[in-house]
């Protein structure tokens, strides 16, 4: 006791480190969503939401002043894209009867896909984890909206990742690069070309084709194959590099994700 009194700082540091290691171990074991973490997360997410919104509002207004020309140009391009999409929508529209037939067929085949809007919850990102090399963020929807751990997260550009923790009104999302989980994919051009990718140590996606002499090309768009935890047909990215590994006798690829994780604002969670 005398030693502790004479070395207060050292004793406090050792005590805090020991407590932190215990908390770290408990957190890694996966029991961190409930209890104190959940309660604090519910409270803090309310504060985070408003602070992030304030920061974003100021940042967007300031950056808008300096990027007026770019914004005008982007506006023109978006208008042209909208016109093209409207025409395409008119050409591709199914009548109600055909749509109902397809729905009945998918139910009969027990086919799991992203169907009605009831299967999707849209959420806003309220904070990132603060480290510049990871892509873990918190969204403003949680178990109250039906979100559960393991739910797939997507955005307009493609696959984002999975929900790793949930609270009542918040959820933490891990991007597909952060997870060391393998993702099964297929090429959009030729759905027979299947492969596996995962995040690498330099923040990219890398993987291999299942067929030894696959004809995958640079620039090919990859989508989820439906095998594993991710539903079928979600955009993953484009192949940036292809090479044959003679040691493993596999065609290896590098993939540029279609999602810019640092520029994410809104995401959708597939229930």
């Amino acid at each position: 006791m005398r030693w502790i009194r004479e070395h207060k700082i050292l004793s406090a540091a050792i005590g805090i480190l020991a407590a932190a290691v215990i908390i770290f171990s408990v957190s890694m074991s996966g029991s961190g969503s409930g209890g104190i973490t959940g309660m604090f997360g519910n409270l803090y997410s309310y504060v985070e939401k408003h602070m992030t919104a304030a920061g974003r509002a100021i940042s967007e207004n300031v950056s808008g002043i300096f990027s007026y020309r770019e914004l005008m140009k982007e506006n023109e391009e978006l208008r042209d894209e909208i016109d093209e999409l409207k025409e395409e929508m008119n050409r591709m529209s199914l009548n109600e009867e055909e749509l109902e037939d397809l729905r009945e067929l998918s139910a009969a085949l027990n086919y799991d896909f992203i169907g009605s809007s009831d299967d999707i919850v849209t959420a806003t990102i309220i904070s990132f984890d603060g480290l510049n090399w990871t892509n873990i963020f918190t969204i403003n929807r949680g178990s109250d909206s039906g979100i559960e751990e393991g739910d797939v997260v997507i955005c307009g550009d493609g696959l984002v990742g999975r929900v790793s923790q949930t609270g009542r009104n918040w959820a933490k999302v891990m991007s597909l690069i952060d997870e060391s989980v393998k993702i099964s994919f297929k090429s959009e051009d030729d759905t027979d070309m299947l492969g596996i990718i995962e995040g690498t140590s330099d923040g990219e996606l890398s993987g291999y084709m299942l067929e030894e002499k696959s004809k995958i090309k640079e620039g090919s768009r990859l989508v989820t194959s439906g095998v594993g935890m991710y539903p079928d047909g979600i955009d993953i990215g484009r192949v940036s590099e292809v090479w044959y590994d003679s040691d493993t006798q596999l065609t290896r690829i590098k993939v540029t994700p279609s999602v810019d994780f640092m520029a994410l604002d809104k995401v959708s969670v597939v229930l």
Partner: protein
Amino acid sequence: MKYRVIVPVFAAALVLQPFLNTLLPWGAAPELIMSSGLMLCLFFESEKVLPVLITGSVMELLSDMAGAQYAGFSVIAFVLAVSLVIFVRQFINIENFIVAAGIYLAAILLYYVLIWILYAMAGSPYGFVYAMSKIPAAVIGNFIFGMILYIVFLVRLNRHRRDRYFR
């Protein structure tokens, strides 16, 4: 240094962190809790910094619980970075700005390296070179914030410099 001063300061840092993260581009937002804790420990004698160590650790834990993948990482890194500052302070004269800046910078780098080590132990796939290549903007942001605090403390603690006592 009293808890009634330190706790509101660190609580304000915790609340303002998401605001700064969104406001500043390129990931240059300083880690307010870490920077404040390091600078307070650099400036004040070791007998007075126990509240900083304890309050900063609690706030780092709350910050982890709110936003990080696992809780406890930032606490371990914060305690060890602060310990470095307290330890080095006993042997080096920190009244020189260059020396103080050097120690502060070393503590910031130690903090990020420890965070990477802990994430790697938890299974993060990111390599050391990639992770360190992403932190320069954050290090600069932390450094600038720390130096602002340094000047504020310097002016405040030397406010009687014109009273002719030392002449």
